[in-house]
């Protein structure tokens, strides 16, 4: 990311070391993941030791140190989703995308991860694609749902 943009984020939080999580969230919002060079820049300019940033970034599942797809796909594996068939939904997603947890599709559009609960159990099983929630998922609906995104992207191009 442009150093000026990172400076803006640091400025927003008043260069407070204690705001490091919020800073990383903002960076990931912009970049989709936490690029190493950007972390080094934050380390030098906040300043905060890079090891400390790395400790925080690896502790939280919400942070990614490798690039994710344009539309990260999160399958909820929480208890409520699980009993309603989340594992089958997950298998279907994996098949459809051809990647495993942590992977990114070759075209860079999708990446796959699981989460343990999204707090919307009434809608389970849930799959989140990008920022959109898809409730009451079934294995059968997976293909068409992902296709929608593929179409949308094709249109954007």
């Amino acid at each position, binding site marked *: 990311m442009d150093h000026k943009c990172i400076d803006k984020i640091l400025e927003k939080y008043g260069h407070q070391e204690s705001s490091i999580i919020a800073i990383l969230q903002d960076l990931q919002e912009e970049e989709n993941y936490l690029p*190493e060079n950007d972390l080094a820049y934050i380390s*030098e300019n906040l*300043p905060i*030791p*890079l*090891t*400390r940033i*790395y*400790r925080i970034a*690896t*502790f939280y599942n919400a942070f990614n*140190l490798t690039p994710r797809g344009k539309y990260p796909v999160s399958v909820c594996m929480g208890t409520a989703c699980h009993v309603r068939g989340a594992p089958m939904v997950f298998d279907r997603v994996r098949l459809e995308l051809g990647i495993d947890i942590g992977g990114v599709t070759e075209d860079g559009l999708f990446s796959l991860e699981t989460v343990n609960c999204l707090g919307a159990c009434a809608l389970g099983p849930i799959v989140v694609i990008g920022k959109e929630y898809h409730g009451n998922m079934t294995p059968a609906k997976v293909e068409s749902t992902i296709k929608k995104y593929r179409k949308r992207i094709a249109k954007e191009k």
Partner: protein
Amino acid sequence: MARKDTITINGDEFSFNEGETILQIANRNGIDIPTLCYMKGLNPTGACRICVVEVKGARNLVPSCATPAMNNMVVETESERVIKSRKLNIELLLASGRHNCITCEKNGDCRLQDLAYRYKVETVRFPESETRYETETNALIIRDFSRCILCGRCVQVCNEVQVNRAISYGYRGSASKIVAVGDLPLNESDCVFCGECVQACPVGALTENPSRFQGRPWEVEKVQTTCPYCGVGCQMNLHIKDNKVIKITGTEDVAPNFASLCVKGRFGYDFINKPERLTVPLIKEAGSLKNASWDDALSLTAKRLVDIKSKYGPDSIGIFSSAKITNEENYIAQKFARAVIGTNNVDHCARLCHASTVAGLAAAFGSGAMTNSVADIEKSKLILVTGSNTTEAHPVISSYIKRAVESGSAKLIVVDPRRIPLTKFATLWLRQNLGTDVAWANGMMHVIISEALYDSNYVKDRTEGFEELKKTVEKYDPAFVSKITGISADDIIKAARMYANSRPASIFFAMGITQHSTGTDNVKSMANLAMLCGNVGVPGGGVNPLRGQNNVQGACDLGALPNVFSGYQPVGDPAVREKMEKAWGVNGLPETSGLTITEMVKGAQDGKLKALYIIGENPLVSDPDINHVEQGLKNLELLVVQDIFLSDTAKIADIVLPSASFAEKDGTFTNTERKVQLVRKAIDPPGKAKQDWEIICELSNRMGYAMEYTDSKAIMEEMNSVTPSYAGISYSRLENGGLHWPCPAPDHPGTPILHVGTFTRGLGQFHAIEYIPPAEVTDEDYPLYLTTGRVLYHFHTRTMTMQSEGLNELSPECFVEISPQDAADYNIKQGDLLRVHSRRGEIQAMARVSDQAIKGTIFIPFHFAKAAANRLTNPALDPIAKIPEFKVCAIRIEKV
């Protein structure tokens, strides 16, 4: 007076100070509470739960390391509940990973094993958990994650003691792992291999690779001695098995390092045991060196020296003493030069590093050494570091500085053209043009004086020459200084105010200040600045030159200099000469100052010097303008080299005498803070090698002057009697820790801070100094500047460090550090082979494009004989100290 608060532990009542933890009180009173993750002096993490105790009224067991005592607390440290909990924790630790003791290096020295034994944990009820991570191996450190108990001691010492910040926790839960940034292997990470983590590891998760399968903890004998590398004087334990050093650890609880070491100290010991060590004397016959007996070699040396002396006079002979040998040996070397040969031509490599410090500080204060102690760094409010890449050249002192900054006790100003690692910790970093140190110092003093921030009482009562100084710095206003130095006027003002308003403030410097043709001026400028703000003679203040060699301070102290006897007693003083003549039983000691190292080399070139006796130095790599040095040495009628290896210089000698390394001798080294510390013999020297003092004494005996000492202690006793500043220093006192000189009497406690109350010379002398540009500046033919220095992994001419596989792996070859801007201008990429020319020579080395370098200046380490930076450097000398300008010369580069 209010009754003091008390706590009851195991039925006994103890008083305590506010804030003390239960563990501290217990330790203080001899109650043994077991610990695992606890590190004395650091913030307790409470991670391992081994030190839990039962507190009456508390619901849960509490970790004694992290629980402050309260009044009327009742504590049980070995109750049934406590023991049950400890046993459970030990079982869980033993179940996490694979704790197989049979071939573990820590078997017998493992805290987890000790605990299991103490609490009789014979079986583990839980299944062994799977180890997720592969063992990682590099040349120096093995990380076995299957043995890691995640206690965090390694993380604590890396971040809080050494402040290298290379490792931390990564991931979480059962996936937790101690990681470097990016979870990279250590040798690809920011790790600097100080090995502090290895020493702190309570189990076998971190071990020294070179020590693997070399010996079990109970088979080794440990001998405490002083590190042979830089001037910090770290205390270390040599682990000895079968007359071989198999491991080195830092000595716990002892100043100055308190168990810390750097990569060289901890891992750079391979040289001691190498088969390449010289084991017999060598004599050149028909152009090649042949093995010889001691008798032949010494007789021949004696005869040749006597012949040359009678033919050309005593001043045709010169002696290079050494900053690597002991105080006793330096004393003997200079005594040999003066009493036996009859010349003051004795000098050593301090000429090339801190001669300007000795000259400059002696003129300003009356004594040319570090004014304050290392421990004093903790008392500084502001630390100014200039011309010292402290983290690489004096790593353990740099940790003191980093800790002071991290704890908030001090601010740091760095003045350095390179982006050295310390700049990360600096509040202010001034990036000056090469060789403009007098200018920025004058600029700061201009601001301090014009804003009346100086200590006027101190200036009035304790110093002289202020008016002249004031007049001279008047024209160095920030705008003018900015033009010379390239530092912005604002930053000069900021630095001046910070320095003047934070007292006590200390100054640390090294070769970046001294190795200039204006070196003495630079040093005097540092003295000016410190005196102006009343920072000399106070705790936490001072002007502190960091000495580069283990015993460079001692070599100077004991008279391995052409103008003084031991204790800086001038050779020109008849009373001193008379005293020495009486003590040594000779007449007519030479009264005029002898030649310096640089002058002796010149003398050899000119044919005035006929014989040179070099002890433990390697001028064919270390001296400026090597091409001329080589000519000079080849021009000699006799070159004798006494060394532990066949160095580049030894290869061209007529006679080579094998000497003992630091591990093979008794004696003392004096570290950078003037502290005299013991060197203890741990093993026997290889083959027929002898201690340096023994060789010189035998040579002297053959030349008709009897030198008979039973041991190094006897030499120390003679030193005591003729050297006032060392008069009170004895081996028996040093057994209990080092002593700072001056220590004039057996009951004197030593002097950690110089110039308290009054300067050695009476009043402190301000010197009004004008800025003079470097001797060589860039032009059309040579458009770039070159500056030289050290890297962390090597020492000087690599005679010792090149013997270590691990160090060579971490720093295999010479490089040319060049800024990204210059690299772009010359179309140079990382790893391109470059040819570097100066007016004196050329070398080739790989490009390392790095933003550590500033545009217009390249940096080359001087360690590597194969691409010796000193083929390029300028031998222009400081007129007073005769120190060469290693730090600035003009060069041009091209791709090969």
